[in-house]
């Protein structure tokens, strides 16, 4: 007998059956079944235990600190140009810098040995002064011919025993555009992890109106201002682009012949999937400023098809238009609460000057948003959490500036001041960034900033650019 039985009790208990359950020479099917059952029970109990064990005890009431992250230079290997590797680490670093939640470690504090593999990572050197980083992103670009494989890791260096938070390989062509996209994806994954589930915006895009080709057309760029390209070539005037919530379409105001043949503002729909315009019904009069419902099934817009410019809502393909507002004066610029889908803020001059009003999405319960000062209030934009409204406001003694209002408490915060006209704010899907147009440099350009008014940066420089709108995260 190669194995002895487990115990004498078992031996004696099994004696009348003239076998030993666990002996190798009489290895019965029953023994195997019993073993398997014991294994299953052990597995389930381990699972249950693990469920009981994982506890987090934490709390608020203490300040929120920024994470300190170092992006080690990514090493070029094989046929990859060093400039490309440099670009990858630069883009990742810029994305993290711009996120507003990360304190980036300056390259001059890096340890002299730059790791390109996890085995080369010296946890001690990166986590201690002067780098003092909590996290390190590292990796390499390995080129074979025209293709490159980008290996990227993200480590918690204060916790040397832990597995990497992220370890990924991106494969694709070793060209500038592709490397940028992968860098954005890597940065987005880091940000998603460190912000506790708030979507990263590194791969998002911004649609805007630019006249640099001669006429006002819809253009699209990456969120950091790179890869600016023209979407429409209508050679007329295109305005107010709005991304659909799934990012597959852009609705905008175009100048087209209406139902009666007169060229007037109408709504055009551009498909980002087929890169073509999609048909959308034409009505008489002016139709403009489309706005998507949060589920993407409906579009609200201003139309004067019944005489007065009023708000209408229609299906996403333009069918079944239904009038929502009934008032003297112009009602336009609807903005749909993205969280609830129940509330709509719009601009109306029924009180004399353009002011903000709220209503339910079915047109009931219209109410004016009371502000403590007079002036023009236009361009409402909801934050993604449906709590804060951004708008531009020209107070009697001032210029157009971007303000935020907490809809629950009606607290106001002014984000821009003494820097040209600042109009048409739009929120990023992470709820931290706002893109807007400003004339602070002399010409009208697109700028972005954080939700507290800091980290202002210019995104466009050529021609006049206006009316930006931020896409939702890429699916």
């Amino acid at each position, binding site marked *: 007998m190669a194995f002895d039985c487990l115990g004498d009790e078992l031996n004696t208990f099994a004696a009348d059956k003239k076998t030993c359950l666990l002996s190798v020479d009489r290895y019965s099917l029953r023994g195997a079944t019993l073993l398997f059952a014991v294994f299953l029970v052990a597995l389930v109990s381990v699972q249950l235990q693990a469920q009981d064990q994982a506890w987090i005890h934490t709390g*608020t009431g203490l300040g929120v600190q920024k994470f300190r992250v170092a992006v080690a230079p990514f090493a070029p290997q094989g046929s990859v140009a060093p400039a490309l590797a440099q670009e990858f680490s630069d883009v990742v670093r810029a994305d993290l810098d711009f996120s507003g939640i990360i304190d980036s470690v300056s390259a001059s504090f890096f340890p002299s040995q730059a790791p390109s593999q996890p085995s080369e990572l010296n946890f001690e050197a990166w986590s201690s002064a002067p780098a003092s980083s909590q996290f390190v992103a590292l990796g390499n670009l390995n080129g074979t011919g025209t293709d490159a494989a980008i290996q990227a890791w993200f480590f918690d260096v204060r916790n040397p025993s832990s597995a990497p938070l992220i370890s990924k390989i991106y494969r694709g062509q070793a060209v500038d555009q592709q490397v940028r996209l992968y860098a954005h994806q890597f940065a987005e994954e880091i940000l998603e992890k460190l912000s506790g589930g708030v979507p990263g915006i590194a791969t998002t895009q911004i649609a805007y109106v630019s006249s640099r080709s001669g006429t006002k057309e819809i253009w699209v760029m990456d969120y950091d201002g790179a890869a600016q390209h023209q979407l429409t070539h209508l050679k007329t005037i295109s305005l107010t682009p709005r991304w659909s919530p799934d990012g597959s379409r852009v609705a905008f105001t175009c100048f087209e012949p209406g139902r009666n043949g007169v060229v007037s503002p109408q709504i055009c729909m551009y498909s980002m999937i087929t890169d073509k315009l999609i048909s959308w019904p034409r009505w008489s009069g002016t139709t403009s400023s489309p706005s998507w419902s949060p589920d993407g099934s409906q579009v609200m817009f201003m139309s004067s098809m019944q005489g007065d410019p009023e708000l209408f809502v229609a299906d996403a393909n333009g069918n079944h238009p239904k009038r929502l507002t009934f008032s003297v004066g112009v009602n336009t610029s609807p903005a749909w609460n993205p969280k609830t889908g129940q509330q709509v803020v719009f601009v109306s001059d029924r009180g004399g000057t353009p002011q903000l009003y709220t209503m339910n999405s079915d047109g009931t319960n219209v109410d004016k948003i009371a502000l403590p000062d007079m002036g023009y209030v236009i361009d409402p934009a909801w934050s993604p959490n449906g709590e804060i409204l951004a708008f531009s406001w020209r107070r009697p003694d001032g210029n157009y500036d971007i303000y935020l209002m907490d809809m629950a408490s009606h607290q106001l915060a002014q984000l821009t001041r003494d820097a040209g006209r600042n109009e048409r704010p739009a929120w990023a899907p992470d709820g931290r960034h706002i893109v807007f147009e400003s004339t602070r440099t002399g010409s009208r350009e697109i700028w972005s900033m954080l939700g*507290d008014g800091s980290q202002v940066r210019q995104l466009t420089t050529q021609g006049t650019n206006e009316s930006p709108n931020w896409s939702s995260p890429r699916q």
Partner: protein
Amino acid sequence: MEYAPQHPGDPTLKGMLVWSVGLHALLAASIVAAAIYAPKTESWGGPGGGQAVQVGLVSKLEGVPLPKPETVTNSRVVDETKALYQTPPQPPKPIEKPPQALPIPKFEKEKQPKYQTRPSRILEDKTPPPPNAVTSPVGGGAPAIPYSQPNPTATQFNVAGGTTGGMGFTGPGGGDFGSKYPWFVEAVRNRVSSNWLQTSIDPSVRAAPRAVVDFQILRDGTITNIQIVKSSGFASVDDSARRAILGSSPVSRLPNDFSGAVVNVEFWFDFRR
């Protein structure tokens, strides 16, 4: 006695006094005249100032998920949450035999173990304990970590004012999750903290006792099973805490190398205006 000048031609004390009084009177008169005849303008920075209306602005709104400045919190001598110290397991009570129970018959005689090991000698420390030694009531082991002390196994965060708050990760397993994935804990804490809209709290509440809320995070980051374990005593504080957690769902996925199906979180909210 006449105070005579030492040299002829020096001014006398009386003359200097007359000059001084005269000049001071002139100065006082010119100040009064300037105050009376000065052109009437609005004082600098005073009220009025054209048509502008004072707008009560705040520097930053709640709800934008950006890092907040550090706030001062009271140091807490008594922690309302569960203590870190675990009571040692009590030995199980011996099962009392019912009086009429018969002993279970053994099938065979008991076997003696093959090898009898000698009892090992105990090397006793003969030196007497120092006179100032403190006897431990629980029999040694690491002391429970007080809340106000830095916890070496947990991530720390500094609070303005010099006190340090520690996040302790305890539990039956001895704090596995928190020490392995401190970044996850911190990310969840930041997310919930930035989603805590304190403007929705009843303005008459100045400060509230700690509210403790338990919830669970599933593997895909969904938050379920939110329970208020200890109410702050103010419904609006409890509601805002619950909304902060609900608004944070889903948080990021649980770490890939974590084997459990769910993580339990005990989250406390300290409210002070």
